[in-house]
């Protein structure tokens, strides 16, 4: 446990040299969507966080132009994918001749609040992500093939479901049966990996708010996922983003949907307990 408390002085000093080169983000801005839904982009850190007092949404680290994209659902390109998901919702697939809508007759609205509590422990005591829930239903209820973990159809569907929780506080359970998974996620978060020998915490806990080259480091919160990224103009899942992070630090990424990323997802979600679900957000 003591290892991760060691501050990464040399790394921090290197980053600090780059700080202040481009002051472009509007960290004091308030996120109001469609002129009616106010999002809490800062909150008091949950009790389990030892090294941070205030948690912040990744939205505040973006430029005002990128921030603006998320302030109106028409301007937000993620809604192209929400529309795709609505079509998929009604599309019959698999041997049972069913669509999502066949069973969920109240529409995606039925899932209000779900994303705010994911990932969670399933009835067999395993950690399950929303993606796994969607695929389980596809296979067991529809007799359809599972979707690939981070493909556009799946990312769009989890964005549509996540949208139903937009505005609600993130509140994932970390105790009881979730505790061992959460501990595993925490351990991974503070473990240095890759050729650059960096842990999640080195960037997103020790150095958030600092520029790393031209990038503004965030706290690595996942309350806006799946998120539309300007970089690739599509929906990006948490596991897809983790993979990208690991490649950046020249580590061999864990498997999407694998136990490591699922545990990290739970731990990261819990670091955002108290922030507002922003899905689908817009990021760089």
């Amino acid at each position, binding site marked *: 446990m003591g290892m991760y408390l060691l501050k990464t002085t040399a790394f921090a000093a290197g980053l600090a040299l780059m700080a202040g080169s481009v002051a*472009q983000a509007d960290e004091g801005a308030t996120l109001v969507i469609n002129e009616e839904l106010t999002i809490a982009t800062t909150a008091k850190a949950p009790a389990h966080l030892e090294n941070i007092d205030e948690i912040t949404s990744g939205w505040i680290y973006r430029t005002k*132009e990128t921030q603006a994209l998320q302030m109106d659902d028409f301007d937000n*390109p993620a809604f192209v994918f929400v529309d795709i998901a609505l079509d998929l919702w009604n599309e019959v697939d698999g041997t049972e001749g069913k669509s999502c809508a066949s069973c969920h007759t109240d529409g995606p609205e039925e899932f209000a609040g779900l994303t705010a509590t994911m990932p969670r422990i399933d009835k067999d005591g395993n950690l399950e992500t929303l993606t796994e829930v969607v695929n389980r239903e596809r296979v067991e209820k529809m007799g359809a093939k599972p979707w690939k973990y981070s493909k556009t159809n799946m990312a769009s569907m989890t964005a549509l479901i996540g949208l139903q929780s937009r505005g609600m506080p993130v509140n994932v359970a970390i105790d009881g049966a979730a505790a061992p998974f959460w501990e595993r996620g925490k351990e991974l978060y503070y473990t240095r990996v890759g050729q650059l020998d960096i842990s999640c915490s080195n960037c997103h806990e020790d150095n958030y708010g600092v520029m*790393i080259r*031209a*990038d503004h480091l965030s706290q690595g919160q996942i309350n806006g996922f799946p998120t539309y990224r*300007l970089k690739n103009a599509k929906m990006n899942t948490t596991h897809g983003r983790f993979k*990208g992070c690991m490649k*950046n630090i020249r580590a061999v990424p864990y498997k999407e949907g694998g136990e490591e990323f699922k545990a990290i997802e739970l731990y990261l979600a819990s670091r955002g307990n108290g922030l507002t679900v922003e899905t689908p957000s817009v*990021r760089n």
Partner: protein
Amino acid sequence: MEFSRRETIALGLGAAALTFMPFRVEAAAEEVISAFTGGADVGEGGVTITAPEIAENGNTVPIGVAAPGAAAILIIATGNPVPNVATFNFGELAGAQSASTRIRLAGTQDIVAVAKMADGSFVRTSAAVKVTIGGCGG
């Protein structure tokens, strides 16, 4: 090939001059503008560009152009492999001679807007946009 000391210094100065020369519209961009204006004189003023000083990602840069009374506005990204971006032709039911869109910029460069006014004259303006090169996010 050998250079004398003096020649070497001269070469160095030439290179330095190139490096520090203010950014100018490149030849390909000028050709596009000439095609639009038919070679007519182009004045200043009367057309504006709204663009971020620093674009977070060159993939999606929000820009707006406005030229009250214009028939059309041409947008050029001078540093792109294909400088042409778009031409807005305003019809009789245009509520204003302005429009916004999202564009791709290959790197830090000048954006030029040329407006064709109702009387057939042309005006232009430009705006510099810095495009950041990301570490992890870009």
